[in-house]
Every structure is written in C-alpha cells, then in structure tokens.
C-alpha cells in the first residue's frame, strides 16, 4: 500500500449525513472482477442525470474540483451494506483522505485495509473546511495528527496501530508477514495423519 504521511490537496465538501454505501456505489456496479474501475460510478445516482450524462450541478463533476484528494463530509459516513466496493470506488476516484463526523465500523475497517485515511472531526471544524475557496488547499499531517488550513489547526485521534500502518504503507498482509517465524513454527507442529 502507498504510505500516507502528509497530504496537501484541494477538497470536495459533501456535507450530508448518513451517506450509505448504496449511495457511494450502487449495487448494479458490484458485479466485477477488479478492485479498480469503480471511480467513474462513485455517487452514481447524484453524479449522473437520468440520461446518464454527468449532472453539472453535482460537486464531483465541477471542473475546478478535479484532482481533489480529500473528501469532507457528514456524520455516519459509509453506513449500510458491508460492500468493500465503497472504499474501492472512493480510492479509485482519487480520494486518499475522508474527513467525516463518524463512520460505520465496517466502512472504517475496510478503509484501513485499503489505505484510505478516514479522519473524524467535529462539525464546527468540518464546516470551516467545507467553506474554504475551491482552489484552496488543506494539509493533513498524519505524524502530527493535525488538519491545517491557514491559521486553523485541528487535532484528530487515530489508533497507533492504524497510524503506523498508514505511515509505513503497510497492509494487513505485510503486517502478518512479520509473523512469519511464528506461522512457520505453528506449521511445523501441525499433526500429520498420513
């Protein structure tokens, strides 16, 4: 996984509460064999009009918002079905960081498994971030556990285990591979019935 230490980027504010995984990626797009390619269908029902052309009103479609790596959003983000495709779609679109009021447990776990940093900030702070100019950049500093914009600086919490994982770019598999000696020792002791 790609390590995340400090990211400075423009943002996309989507200040709605309870955005569920069905809205993030509707179920008709799940039948696939890859982890990539879901970005074009991210937030499908909001992003496209009935004739499947992009909805110019929707923030993700605005030309000046392209390239943003940080999503600022509401409370209880990623609730609903456990589909990992929701994180795959956000990541494939280009988001590396999500700043929300909270997450469903499964979504949070899925984001740590896929290298998308999910940060929790209170509403007043998210409101400030949601109102900055379109071309303004904010900085997410993971080692310092801070989100910074101009003179604002907001601290956030993260479990040391996940923090270490993101900074080193470790995925679960890489971490488990660190237990190789114990796994091999276990295997040497498996009873043989042959």
């Amino acid at each position, binding site marked *: 996984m790609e390590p995340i230490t400090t990211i400075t980027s423009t943002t996309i504010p989507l200040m709605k509460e309870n955005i569920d995984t069905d809205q993030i990626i509707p179920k008709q797009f799940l039948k696939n064999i890859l982890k990539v390619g879901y970005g074009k269908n991210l937030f499908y029902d909001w992003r496209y009009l009935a004739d499947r052309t992009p909805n110019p009103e929707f923030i993700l479609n605005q030309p000046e918002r392209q390239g943003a790596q940080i999503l600022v959003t509401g409370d209880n983000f990623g609730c609903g079905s456990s589909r990992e495709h929701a994180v795959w779609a956000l990541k494939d679109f280009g988001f590396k960081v999500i700043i929300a009021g909270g997450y469903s447990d499964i979504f949070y776990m899925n984001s740590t498994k896929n290298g998308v940093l999910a940060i929790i900030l209170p509403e007043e702070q998210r409101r400030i971030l949601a109102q900055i100019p379109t071309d303004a950049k904010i900085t997410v500093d993971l080692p310092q556990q801070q989100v910074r914009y101009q003179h604002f600086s907001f601290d956030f919490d993260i479990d040391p285990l996940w923090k270490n994982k993101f900074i080193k770019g470790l*995925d*679960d598999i890489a971490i488990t591979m660190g237990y190789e000696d114990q*796994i091999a020792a276990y295997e040497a002791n*498996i009873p043989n019935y042959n």
Partner: protein
Amino acid sequence: MKQTMFDKLWDRHVISGEPGGPQLIYVDLHLVHEVTSPQAFEGLRENGRQVRRTDKTFATMDHNVPTTDIFNVKDAISRKQIETLARNAKEFGIRLAGMGHADQGIIHVIGPQLGLTQPGMVVVCGDSHTATHGAFGSIAFGIGTSEVEHVLATQTIWQTKPKTMGIHVHGRLPHGVYAKDIIMGIIAREGVAFGTGYAVELYGDTIENMSMEERMTLCNMGIEGGAKMCNVKPDQTTFDYVAGRKYAPKNMKRAIADWKQYYTDSPEAFDKVIDFDVHKLAPFVSWGTNPGMSVPVDEKLPEIKNADDQKAFDYVGLRPGQPVLDIPIQYAFFGSCTNGRLSDLKIAANVLKGHHIAAGVTALVVPGSRAVKEAAEKMGIDQIFKNAGCEWREPGCSACLGMNPDQVPAGLHCASTSNRNFEGRQGAGSRTHLASPAMVAYAAINGHFVDIRKEEV
C-alpha cells in the same frame, strides 16, 4: 477450567495475540469460488505475492454455472468470473474442480464430499454458508474479499474470539419432520440475530442420532440466525463419514485419536445455553422475506406487528390469518448447499415416486455436486423426478440465488429447499417459501403446501 469444544479448537489454532483482542489464527482449509475471489487474486498479483499453501486451498465454480448447457455461459460477467477463476487457479497453482470436472459442485457440498473438510480444522471461504463445515467439529466461517486475499497470502486470519452458545436439541423427531425444520424452528423462535457474536454448538440426543448430511443442513442455516460459526461435536458418525474419501487422512486411527479431544466438557462452559425440544415439532414453512418469518405448516400466517411485517406481506402478496396450506405454489426448487445432497434428493424422490407435479408447477432439481448427480442417476432417482414432471439439471447454486439463468419469475411463489427467502433472492420479485425437501415435494404435487405428517411416506 471447563472448556467448550470451540474453546479447545480456538486455542489449538492461535498463533499470536491475546484473548479479548484480534488474534492471529491458522487456517487449515481455504475454499474458493468464482464470485468473491477475483479481487483477492488481483491484489496478490499487484503486490507480487504468492499463495502460501496451495495444498490447503481448493477452488470450484458454483454460483454462476448454467445448469442446462454447462459450457454455454451466456451472461458476460458470469463468464468473466468463471474464466478469471480458471486463469487464477492455473497461475497460482491451486487445485480447481472446474466446469465439467468430476469433483465440481457447490463449494459447501464438495468440501465434505471430498474429505477436505475434517474435524479439528479451521475452514474459511468467501461465503457466509461456510458455517456448514462446522458440522464436522471444526471452526468454519465466511470471510470478506480482503480476508480471502489475506488467507491466500498468509494461510492465517485475524479474528476476535466470539462468545459461545450451546443449543440443547433433544427428543425424537416426529414423522415428516426433518433437520431443516429444527433449524427453521429455532430461528423462528429465537429470531434472525440470536446468534450474532456467538459460536453456536448444537448438542443433545437428537443431534447425536443424525447423519452427517442432516447435521450439515443444521449448521448451514446457523448463519440465518446470525451465527457466523455453528458446530457439532465429532463422533463415530463423523469419523465414518470422512474415512475413505478422496482427501481423507490415510492414517485414520491417528486422526481419530486426535479428533476425539474435541468436545465440550460441560454445558456450564457455554456463555449461554438455550433448549430446543423437538418431540412435538411441526414442519416449518417461511412466509415472509427473512428466514425468521416462518410458521408451522398447520398454523395461520401471523398478524402484522411492525413495518417489516407489513412490507413482507406486501412483497409476498399474502394476508395475515391465511392458512399456510393455502399458499399457492407455481415453482419448486430442489437443491442448494442446505438440501442439495443425495439424502435430500432421495427423500424428495420417495415422495414423488408414482406421482406427477400439479399442472402449472415448474420444478427444478439441481444436485449439489456432480458426484451427487451421478450417484442419484445410478440409483434411478433422476428418472423418478423426470417421470414426475421435474427438470433434472446439472449441479450448481442455481435458483438458490439466481446468478445464472435459473430464476423464479416475478410474483410467483416457489417452494424451495434453499436457505434464504430475501426479496429478489431467487429472481426479481420472486416469492420464496423455505421448507424441507419432503415438504417441497408434496407442495409440487399439490400446487400448495400440505401437512406431510398426515401423509404415508
């Protein structure tokens, strides 16, 4: 300290980590199918990783396979998933029972049938009905796609130990009542989430007197009650079942000596115990849109208690107070990892022998595996089904979830031996009624459910 069987199995498999938090546990058998594995293999490839233990991994195709012309997969995505698994198995060196292979079938049917599933194991698969394999006295549970990738690469998985629950099942099963009715009865009484957070063990004289195939039916549906893991103590019935199968241990004596240590010391060791007396149990039929919405065949459909009930009644087009016996049946499905094994087909054929299904009823018989199909054909069971007007198909998941063309048309009622009656499960707008194979066979003959306790067979 007194321990449950589950505690002993768990302790045996812990590689690292303390109780209470995530622990790294070893996986003895990883079963793979075409729907939940493509992204996992893709992940391995991206990171230049291998499958750690190809000898503990086994793959088949089941969810998407056609049951008429097996080599003609019409849906493009189904075809892609099937072809991708074949390519991945080859590239990573995994055993595959592919299309047309003698060992092919529903993953939860072939694991036991091939002797891959054994007592004392940790078995995982990217599929919630992996609970089935717990019938052998193993820890068996379904996992997500990232976890499939993790197991492929490391042969281990991080898990937090669940609490344990014992269900004491006792009494003699009445005539016409089967394993399926026990598990449906438990879920109807306890609810669809009673097992959430628990590893459930079924024990008692009823269970001890059961065949392995019946025990598998029970554990298979444990997940419909929220229990990710559901198991039964291994005993002589288990050992006799495993012995001599293709991948069974060569030294059975040594294996059995080891497997015999897996039992619960005393029911007090469970965090929770519930009691289920079967001696007056009736056959169950599901009326609504989850397996908990089920009632005994001689009862009436329940009153509406909440918005979920209302929604379910609207969906299935039935009314509160209507007798179960009046539910009209236009489809019958025999198959799935719940009731698609040889003993299930035998029971249904026994009922259908010398009869014909009712006019206007379509009945599909989909054996759980190629081996089940061939064994049934050797016994002439296929002829009985065909003579009764049923369609005898190739093995697979089929109408259990309708990922292939086998779907129940919108608005029609299907008596089904499968495990889920969710909205749209057997096809958009389909109305599923779960029941035992004998109940489904009688429903197919009569065009509605009947109380089979009053019938001859």
